[in-house]
């Protein structure tokens, strides 16, 4: 059946508020058709799963992954979400989608037909294409391998629990989780392995050990000798602390190194998501908005459907002002959507201001720019590049400075001629990772001299570390490292000052 012969069918099916599987299939087909023909989206195949609210809660606690290694943290997240949901403090999202191939999305069973079509356009076209196209995801994750890898991780952790007892496994994972944010390679692309490759790697490791087994080694006190660090020879610090510990911890048993590795891989997998929230949501919202409107223009949708759609759409991009009691920061959906919409406007109907600000974009093909922007940026660079004066005016953005030394907050920029650039810089640095993940790196010392691990905190904006948390985290590092850990803070003169020690 050609897409146009589905017109009447879709009108009939999508006007019924109660979806059925035929209507989901049809929605998937039509959005896919227009996604390709109209927006030129390149997507992974979709795997749409209809789930109950409880299953959605399950999905929440594993951040959408169909499986993950067992840990109490996921149970805690489930309980927190469930409490919030039951007591009405939190609604469940209509969908959840993960970066995998095929691209798995979960759709709530109690969505109306309109919502189903909307979330299919949003997730299965928008997010899906973003996962496939954005350089962060391309470079840092392997959508083909992740599902497989998580199965390996689960089995491996279960095996460790059997063999070494859950207490040890739990303590190790707890410690790894404390360092999860500092377990990411920011500059080097990691390679994801599939379950088969991973098992093969482990087997070879065992073989190697067996073949090179030597009675003499038994006499050496440390149970496993450190694996010599080859990477970045010459660099003095290692930003991926988990990696450093995995490779250099003096007497960590092999299975614990493997656990560190698993947490590292997962952390790396989620790394691009935290860096592209505004873009990803903005892109998906832009996509569903255009696809649904296109479908309406082409006669696939009734007026009633559109009314319901507009209601959902406008609540998604609702941005309460700073003074509202509903205010909880900038809504990434709104910010991202507004920017993408404005890019399109600049391409199609540029003003003099646009021509001055975006000479390369004004008057050009919007679809091309839309794809270029989606593919080549992350939140901070995206905002720095594309946040236009018009969007700043429309959202009435302003920047407020909070210096702990001052008695006053200061408005440093507002949406006027002299403020635009400053606003853009402020918002960009606000979304930069360093703003919410402290820059702490491991100093590569000579481990023959002492087994002390030196961590160096390099503060930005004069931030102090949260004292109590730093102490607890340092104890976790100590647990993994097995020897004393010192935390230093770099001061303005570049001198390291000792902050804390964990013995």
């Amino acid at each position: 059946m050609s897409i146009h012969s589905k017109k009447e069918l879709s009108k009939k099916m999508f006007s019924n508020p109660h979806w059925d599987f035929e209507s989901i299939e049809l929605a998937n087909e039509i959005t896919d058709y227009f996604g390709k023909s109209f927006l030129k989206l390149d997507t992974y195949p979709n795997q749409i799963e209809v789930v109950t609210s409880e299953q959605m809660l399950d999905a929440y606690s594993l951040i959408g992954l169909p499986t993950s290694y067992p840990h109490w943290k996921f149970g805690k997240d489930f309980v927190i979400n469930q409490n919030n949901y039951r007591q009405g403090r939190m609604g469940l999202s209509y969908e959840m989608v993960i970066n995998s191939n095929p691209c798995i999305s979960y759709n709530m069973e109690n969505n109306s037909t309109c919502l189903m079509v909307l979330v299919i356009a949003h997730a299965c076209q928008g997010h899906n294409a973003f996962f496939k196209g954005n350089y962060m995801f391309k470079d840092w994750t392997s959508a083909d391998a992740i599902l497989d890898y998580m199965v390996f991780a689960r089995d491996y952790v279960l095996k460790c629990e059997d063999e070494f007892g859950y207490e040890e496994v739990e303590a190790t994972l707890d410690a790894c989780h404390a360092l999860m944010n500092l377990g990411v390679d920011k500059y080097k692309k990691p390679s994801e392995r599939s379950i088969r490759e991973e098992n093969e790697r482990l087997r070879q490791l065992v073989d190697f050990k067996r073949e090179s087994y030597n009675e003499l080694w038994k006499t050496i006190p440390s149970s496993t000798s450190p694996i010599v660090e080859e990477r970045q020879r010459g660099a003095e610090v290692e930003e991926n602390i988990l990696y450093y510990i995995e490779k250099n911890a003096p007497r960590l048993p092999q299975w614990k190194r493997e656990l560190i590795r698993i947490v590292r891989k997962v952390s790396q997998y989620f790394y691009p998501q935290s860096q592209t929230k505004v873009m990803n949501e903005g892109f998906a919202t832009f996509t569903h908005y255009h696809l649904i409107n296109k479908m309406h223009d082409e006669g696939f949708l009734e007026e009633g459907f559109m009314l319901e759609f507009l209601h959902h759409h406008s609540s998604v991009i609702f941005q309460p002002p700073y003074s509202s009691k509903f205010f909880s920061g900038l809504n990434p959906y709104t910010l991202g959507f507004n920017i993408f919409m404005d890019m399109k406007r600049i391409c199609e109907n540029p003003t003099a201001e646009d021509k001055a600000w975006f000479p390369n974009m004004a008057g050009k093909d919007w679809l091309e720019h839309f794809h270029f922007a989606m593919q080549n940026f992350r939140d901070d660079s995206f905002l720095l590049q594309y946040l236009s004066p018009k969007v700043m005016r429309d959202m009435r953005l302003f920047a407020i400075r909070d210096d702990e030394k001052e008695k006053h907050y200061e408005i440093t920029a507002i949406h006027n001629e002299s403020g635009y650039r400053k606003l853009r810089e402020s918002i960009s640095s606000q979304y930069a990772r360093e703003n919410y993940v402290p820059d702490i790196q491991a100093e590569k010392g000579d481990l023959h001299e002492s087994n002390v691990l030196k961590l160096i905190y390099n503060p930005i904006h004069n931030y102090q570390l949260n004292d109590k948390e730093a102490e607890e985290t340092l104890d976790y590092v100590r647990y993994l490292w097995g020897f004393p850990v010192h935390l230093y803070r770099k001061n303005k003169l570049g001198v390291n000052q000792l902050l804390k020690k964990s013995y």
Partner: protein
Amino acid sequence: MGKIIDRRQNSKGKSTSNRHRFLRRVEDQIKKALPDLISQEKITDASKGGTVRVPIKKISEPSFHHDGRTGNKTTVRPGNDRFNQGDKIPKPPSGEGKGSGQGQGSNDPAVTEDEFSVTITRDEFLHYFFDDLELPNLLKKYMEQTEATKLRRAGYSKEGSPAKLAIKTSYQQSMARQIAIKGVLKKKLEGLKAAYESSTDVEEKASLLAEIELVEKQMKNVPFFDHIDLRYKNHEPHPQPITSAVMFCIMDVSASMGEHEKDIAKRFFTLLYIFLQKQYKKIEIVFIRHHTVAKEVDEEEFFNSRESGGTIVAPSLKLMRDIIRERYNLSDWNIYCCQASDGDAWSERDAVECRNIIKEQLLPQVQYMAYLEINNSEYSSYLWQNYKAISEDSGFSIRKIYQVSEIWPVFKGLFKKKSVIKTT
């Protein structure tokens, strides 16, 4: 194009094993919270599970973070309605205002942890509740005592009283017998008739004819019911757990019963209630409070009313007796009673009367009765003295208690004693 999968039929408990790992981690906190929970909640709520507050400390997930109160940071916000560049806004006196924070709308779950509490299901609740008490064993022992037998249909028997006659089955038996006998006779008759036709000998013919007549007569005389046809409905006794129970909570609310005493009583009642609820499908509670007069009240009034006066105990027991007579048929209900008092009775005559009511009227009717004296003085009250005299009777136990910590051991003691008595 991809595929569409209906996951709704899949198992829901995907997070179960992680939840168990989580619960294992907070078990200690939950156990510590139980006594509090019992004293906070209504008795009838306590068994529904409820919310246990778990301290944040042990389940926090620390990592390196900036201290939001420090530094020199700039945040962009939407909806400017009054500010100009360079405006200065005084900070709120607490030093922490809207300006602090991570900047973007954080969806970090850690945000909600300030008021963290765990909701555990009823089963989980009971699991922890009884875990410390070693009650499961006790329960089992105790359950053995509370089985009754009930007759259950068990096919048919050939003997029985006329009232149990199963007419349909008997009729079927009779039909079968008639068909069988008539079939045999008919065959015989046919054989005889054939012999008669083919016979030429007159004498033989006469004898055959006589025989034919006899058989025809027999066929007519096959009885409609024979005693071997009769079937009686058969019933066998079957062990049947008793499924309903009523608990009487009797509390002295005279002036001498302070908040502490009531609290102890309430905790004890709650425990008893949960214990019984584990055993019975249906459980009711009757609250009786008394000073000089006894009155049936609801839970709210039972624990919270300020009404007070002198103390006469016997009317409460009489009231209980009357309520049993009116509402709780002994064959349907297991009756329990827990009486809590500080032992302060008006007169010895009152105490003696109580003793007599319990011994003669209540004990034959109740499964078990406990008297709890919330009193730490050395001297023995009238009630105590009198009850002590009958406390060896099966199904009646008395205990003194004053501290919260004594509730568990006393409760255990009470029920252990009961099972010992019954099993010996």
